Every structure is written in structure tokens, then in C-alpha cells.
């Protein structure tokens, strides 16, 4: 196991999924790969949590699923962001920024 890997704090998986899907629709495998690549392998999506999270987000109406053909022409389930998902992403990203900034202030106090 890689020591550089970080554990995802509670609740951030939803944010990461929403952000990834805001760029373009993707299937489950692609989502986890993209998060790994973009975070320079620091963030590894726990496979066991990805699919339950996707179904939960779909139930909330933030993403919706469609069957399509993947790059090597296999049938895959693509997820995309809904308008209400976009609103949710903006809200959660803002919250995240405020949280990290606040934590940063506290850590840098002298």
C-alpha cells in the first residue's frame, strides 16, 4: 500500500464526484480514475463507497444516469450532473473553501 495515500474525510466523496461530473459525464470507473489522476494519486476513492455514493446522489436528484457506449464500445452507465446538482456543487465547494480556510487560519496562528 502506498504511504502517500490520504483517507477521504467524511462527506468529501460526494463533493469530489459532483466536481468530476461537472466537467463531463462519466462512468464509475472513469470517475475514480480521474480523481486519482487529478489528485496525483494522493486521493484513492474507496471502491466500496463509490457505487453506494452514486446511487445516493442519484436518489437526491443531483446526478442522473444514462446507458451509453464507453471508449472501447462497451455498454456503460454514464452519470451526469443535473441543474440542482450544479447548485449543490457550488454550495458544497463554497463550504469546503470556507472550512479549509478557517482550519488554515487556526493552524497558522502564532
Amino acid at each position: 500500500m502506498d504511504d502517500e495515500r490520504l483517507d477521504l474525510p467524511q462527506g468529501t466523496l460526494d463533493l469530489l464526484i459532483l466536481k468530476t461530473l461537472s466537467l463531463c459525464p462519466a462512468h464509475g470507473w472513469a470517475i475514480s480514475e480521474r480523481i486519482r489522476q487529478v489528485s496525483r494519486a494522493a486521493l484513492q476513492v474507496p471502491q466500496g463507497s463509490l457505487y453506494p455514493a452514486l446511487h445516493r446522489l442519484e436518489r437526491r436528484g443531483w446526478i442522473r444516469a444514462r446507458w451509453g457506449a464507453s471508449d472501447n464500445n462497451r455498454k456503460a452507465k454514464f452519470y451526469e450532473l443535473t441543474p440542482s446538482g450544479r447548485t449543490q456543487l457550488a454550495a458544497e465547494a463554497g463550504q469546503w473553501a470556507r472550512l479549509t480556510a478557517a482550519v488554515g487560519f487556526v493552524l497558522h496562528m502564532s
Partner: protein
Amino acid sequence: MLSELWSDLRYRLRAFVHRAELERELDAELEFHIAHAAEAYERQGLPAGEARRRARLAFGSVEDIKERSREARGTTFLESVLQDLRYAWRGLRARPAFAVGVALTLALGIGANATMFGIVDRLLFRPPPYLRDPGRVHRVYLSQTYARTEYTERDASVARYLDLARWSHGFSAVAPFGTWRIAVGMGDATRELPVMGASVAYLGLFDARPALGRFFTADEDRLPTGVPVAVLGYAYWQVAFGGSRDVLGRELQIGRTAFTIIGVAPEGFVGLGDDEVPAVYVPFAAFTWNARPEDHTTDYHWQWLELAVRRAPGVSPAAATTDLTAALERSWTAQATWEPNRASVAAAKPRALLGPVRVQRGPLPDAAARVAVWVAGVALIVLLIACANVANLLLARAVTRRREIALRLALGVSRGRLIRQLVTESLLLAALGGLGGLMAAQSGGALIRRLFLPADVAAPVLGDGRTLAMTALATLAAALITGLAPAVHALRSDVARDLGAGGRDTDARASRLRTMLLTLQATLSVVLLIGAGLFVRSFGRVRDLRLGFDVDPVLVVTLNKRGVELSFDQQIALEQRLSDAALALPGVTGATPAATVPYWAYEGRALFVAGIDSVDLLGDFVMQAGNPDYFHVMGTRLVRGRGFDAADRAGAPPVVVVSAGMGRTLWPGRDPIGQCLRIGADTVPCTTVVGIAEDARTQSLSQPRTYTYYIPVSQFRAPTGMLLVRVAGRAEDHVERVRKGLQAQLPGAAYVTAQPFRDMVAPRMRSWQLGATMFVAFGGVALALAGIGLYGVIAYGVAERRREIGIRLALGAQRRQVLALVVRGGLRLIASGVVAGSVIAALLAQRAASLLFKESPLDPLVYVGVAGVLLLVAAVATWLPATAAARVDPSVTLRSD
């Protein structure tokens, strides 16, 4: 937020309905992921088999992910509910007799409640249809104090209404209205129908648009005459005109005037709807003008209309009451200028009251409405008894299923899930019961509704949201109550012991619970039966009461001149002619004009007797006028002296017959015959008492201080407008013949109506009869339920004790002793229920005392009788299973397990 909830729900439902498809998709999705991962490993140079194994390893447990994904879809709960339902349904299908028995028991209880809720809701709670902002609308009651007693009434005069409208300020509407039965139509098609004089302000209380045409305008409703236009009630339009759209502009004869039809009220419109539903609405002004075109706006004594008001915005009820009382006092003073002898404001203390829209919730409810509330309470008790019965059955079943339940617990089913399953079962049973109850309320309840609600008020069960909601609530409550006992039992069960016991030995805890339920049932049944007994005895007293006249063979004939002008003498002659014509009809044995018809119309005069200051303070004195045939027609017995004869003519010395009570009151200790009574004024010549008649109850069944005196109609010297006709047999059978026979004698548009006298008396007996009927019906149901429950539980208990009984018998006990043991146990149970029930009934009955007629709420006969009946039922319910158990050969019983 709401849209999110909605999308959530939609998703869950779709996921639930298409769960097989979603399951396949999930498989495909996960398979796709693993295949991708395996490819990545292959690209790193691993052989295909190894790459796939690694990918699976990295992915983790597929089943676990699938389970969590399913949970994320939010359908697991629904799925388990469905599973429980299927399980419960299979369980019930396996024992159909049990399921049907339970469902029927609950259907009785729920049906009774759905019916009574519909009635009480309509009488007391539901605002009338179309009424705008019901919270600000009130009915007006006027009260005054007379001889230190406050009298409150709903009726007002036109003159009073005009004063109140003119001098009050806190209202956005003061709306007079009144409904009378008036002749509608011409010739043979003439019918007496309820016609409402509705002011424009009254119609303005509602948000109703005419189904056709228009309502009246303020111009058409202007006193003194108004304009003769009419709006048809929807039901009357359908029945009499077939719902034809070209009724507009047609003429309709109402009373003595031809009205032009200008509209049709919308469907379901009944006004404030406490009385009959009007067939026709006419402007209030035209209505009063039609009824009495002389002094209709100035006579304060012509009291017949009702007032509704709408408080102006921002005016509190208290402020509005003060305002209206001030206007009433001013009106009182204004009236004194016409009637100088009237009691002053200070003495009469006139007061206005703002009552609720529903008359039955106001200060003057009829007894029938109060009976309805009691009967609704009774229905609730019936439901409780039904629930106790079902709970007992379910509990008994849970005990026999103890091993099954213990086994499932041992296999790892959570107790929460188990309880959910038990509750699902009772929910299913209750739902079946609820459906049955709705059907019972729809069909059987119609009979009960007709007893309580005014005629023509549509009161469906199935199409009514409030009734359906209440039924659902009752069903849910029944499910929880009946499911609770077995659930608690399951929760506390001891797996190891239950599995080891082999379902043989008795369960002390469960039987204690069952005993409690049984005692509760017995208690409630005793309460109901005592209520039934009290009402039945009270009704028996009402029925056996000697009214002082006969009711069944008498017909009341009313003469309506309808615009035909007749002088006093002509009308007296006409009444004489009608009376003779009636006597000539076959089946008629007597006929007389009458000034008073008990319970319907009264005549009275001021009386003066030498030596008494104010005769009025001694009681109510009702005047009756009749011909020499009168005492025969009414069947009133003469105690002493004579009745009238042909010699008591107009010019002859005036004579009077007084009732026995009146003689005792006015001339205590002296013989009334030969005494002098002055009628109308203290200056007129003496009217001599020539006879004494038995006492008659002419105004109320229970009011003691009502007295009647009788004078010859020839000396009454005024038309009476009414005739009493005695027939051989029952009056109902002669109505049409007598009406037709008399109609032939009448001039012009004048007409007569004939009604059995019973119709006027019956409403006074109605509330007593209602209470008796309903309590007996529901009390009977309760007794049957309690009896069945008792039998079931005791029989079950005895069956459980078969081994014990066998051992006792084997050890040498006599069968007789064993029997006594079992029977004594059952009786002790019921005896405690009888005692508790009697105490509760005694407390409750005190509060219902006013609904009982000359019946003590503590009538020992009823209490002892009910205790006897219940103990008898208990004895039978114990005896049968006990003898069965004692008859079994102990060697068989002991070897059976």
C-alpha cells in the same frame, strides 16, 4: 426543498417498482468496473487470469457493495414491508375462519364509529358548505329575564331585526332568514314545501354561485314589499323540473303570490343547514310581504325569523356581543313607546348572544343532538370492546406461536423486525376490518343517519374525505391497540425457555394480560348495558305516559285561505261546514274546529280570578276551543261535571271546562265547578266552570305546570283555522281521503292539509326513542362481542389447563370440584368487571340524567339486571368448556404430550 423531497420519493418508488431491472443494471455496472480494472492490470503486463483476480481483490466484496448500493437507493424498508405483508397474508390465508372473525369484529366497531362520526361531525363541527370565513359568522340568540328566569330564543321579529341592523356597528352583515312550509304550485299539483325567505345579506355569507341564472339583488329585497322573484334549490329543480334549463322566467305560485324564477342554487347548497333543505329561496322582503302584508315590519310580537351575523374585521366576539346588546336595549326602549305596559330594560335585562353557526352547539341544542354525542361515545366503547376481543385472540395465537417466534429469534431475526411483522399482521387485519366497516357504515349506517340528521341532507360515507380520514385513523388505532399485546409478548419472550418448553406449559404473563383485557371488556359491556337499560326504561315510561288525549286516531286538518278573502263570520261558517263534511266521510267518527293543537300551535289569553294577583305566575295556561264533539274527538276524559252542548251558543252564558290541575291551582281546597273565570280582561263577565277534564300534557312531556281550559268554539267567536278529525283505526290510513273530501268544500285557491296528529307528537318522543334504540343496538353488539370474547378466552384457558385438570382428577379430585374450580375462576373475573362497570356507569349516568325521562340514573333494577345477565353469560361461557375438560379421561390427557 419540496422538489427535492418529491424527486427523492419518485426515485424510491421507481427503484421499488423496477427493482429487478435495477438489480441487473447494478450487476452490469460493477462488472464493467472490474473489467476496466482488469484491463489496467493487463496493460501493466499481468496475464489475463491474474489481472482479473487482482481487480476483484482490489474492488472488495461485490455482495457488500451491492447491499450498500441497494440501501442507498432507499428501498430496503419498502421491500421488507412488502415481505411482511406477504407473510401476514399467507398466515391469514392459512386460517381463514380466524381472519374473517377478526375482520368482522373490527368491522362492527369501525363501522359504528364511521357512522356516528359522520353524524356528530355534521351536527356539531363541520361548517355548512359554501360558508365563507365561518369563524366570523354567528347565529344570534336573544334572551330576557322574566320572573327571575332567563329565557333564550332564536326567533326574532322583523321590527327587532330592523332595530338591530340600524343600531349595531360591529358587523359587516346582519342577515335575517326563515324557512316555512308554504303551498307551492297551483291546483292539484300544489304541495307544501319548505320555502326560505333569504335576505341578500344572508346569501352574501356564502361563496355560492348559482348553478343557473342569478341570485336576488338588493333592490329586489327591499322592504316593505320586495320583488316576487325566486331561486330554486338544486334538488327541487332536479325533481320538479327535471333539471331543465328553461325554467328561468317561468312563474311559480308560492302562497298567495306568483313568483318569477330567476335562478337555481348550486348543488349541495343548504344555507346554514340546520333545518329542512329549502326547495325554493325568495327575497326576505317578498317573503314577509307574502306572509303578512299589514304590519309586518312593525309588530315586535311576530317572532319567526332567525338572524345570522358576520363580525366586521377586527371586532372581537366579546365586543360584538356588547355592541349587539346595546342595540337590543335601544330597540327594547323603542318598543315601549308602542307598548307602555312593557317591562323596563332594567327589569327584563334583554341580552344578545352570539352563538356558533351550528345550532346544535349553541345554547339551545335539541335533545337528539345531545343523544347523538352520547351514542358516538357508545360507538367508541364498542370499538374498544372489539379491539380487546381481537387483542385477546391475537395474544392467544402469539402464545401458541411461541416456539416459532423463539426459533426465529434464535436464528437471528431482530426483535424490531419481528414486532414490525406482528404489527403488519394486525394492520392487515384492521385494514380488512376498516373496509368492512366502511361498507357497513355506507349501507347500514343510512338507517341511523336518517334518525339523527334532517331529511334531505346528503351524508355519504365513501365520498366524504373527513369520514374516510377518521375511518383510516380508527383503523390505524385499532391495529396498534390489537397488535400491541402480542408484540410486547414477543419482545419479552425468553428464547431458551420457550424453545425448551415445547409449547406445553402455560405462560403466566400472557394469561395475566388476557385476564386484564377480559376484565376491561366486561367492564365496558356493563357500562353499555346499564346505559341501554336506563334508556329503555325511560322510553317505556314516555310511551306509557297518559298524555290526556289520544294521538293515533286523530288527524289535524289545517285551512289555508291563500288570498281568498273571507269575513270572520264567513270563515266560522266555513269551518262549521268543513267539520260537518268531515263527519259525513266514511271512517270518520268525530270532527271539531280547534284553536290549539298540542305540540304544534297554541292559543292563550290573560286570565283573571278573584283573589289571585297574577294568574300568569302560577303556570302556563293553554286555551282550547272546540264543539260539543271535542272531548270525544280527542279522547280527553271528563272527570266531573259536563262538557259542551248545543245550548252553549254564541249568546248563551259563557262556560268553561278546566283541567283538574288547573282547578286545584286556582281554587285550592274548593270545588272549581261553579267558579268564575274572567278570560281576556278583568272587566268582562264571568265564564262559569261547568266541568273538570283530566290533565293534558300539551307543551312538553315532562313540564308539570301546564294547564288547559276548554271553551265552546261558538263562544270563541273567531276562526280557528284548524280542525281535529277522529277516525276509526289509525290516522295515517285516512289522510288522503279526508283531505280530498274537505278540499271539495273550499272556495278559490284555498286549500287544506291533513296530517296525522302522531307526526306532531312524535318529535317530542324522538330523543327518548333514539337513545333507547341506539343504546340497545350498540349494547347488544357489545354483549355479543363480550360474550364471544369471554367464551374464547375461558375455553382457551381451560384447554391450557387440561393437564392440570387431568392430574387433579388422577389424584382423586371429584369432577364436581374441578368444575367448581374452573367456573369460579371465570365468574370472579367477570364479577370484578361488573363492579367496576357499575361504578363507571353510575358516574356517567348522572351526566346523562337530563336525557332520561322520570328514570333515576341509579335505577337498581337496571344495575341488578345487567349484573345478572353478564354473570349468566359468564357462567355459560365457563360451564361448557369446563364440563368438556372434566369429561376427558385423565389417562388420555396426561399421555397426550
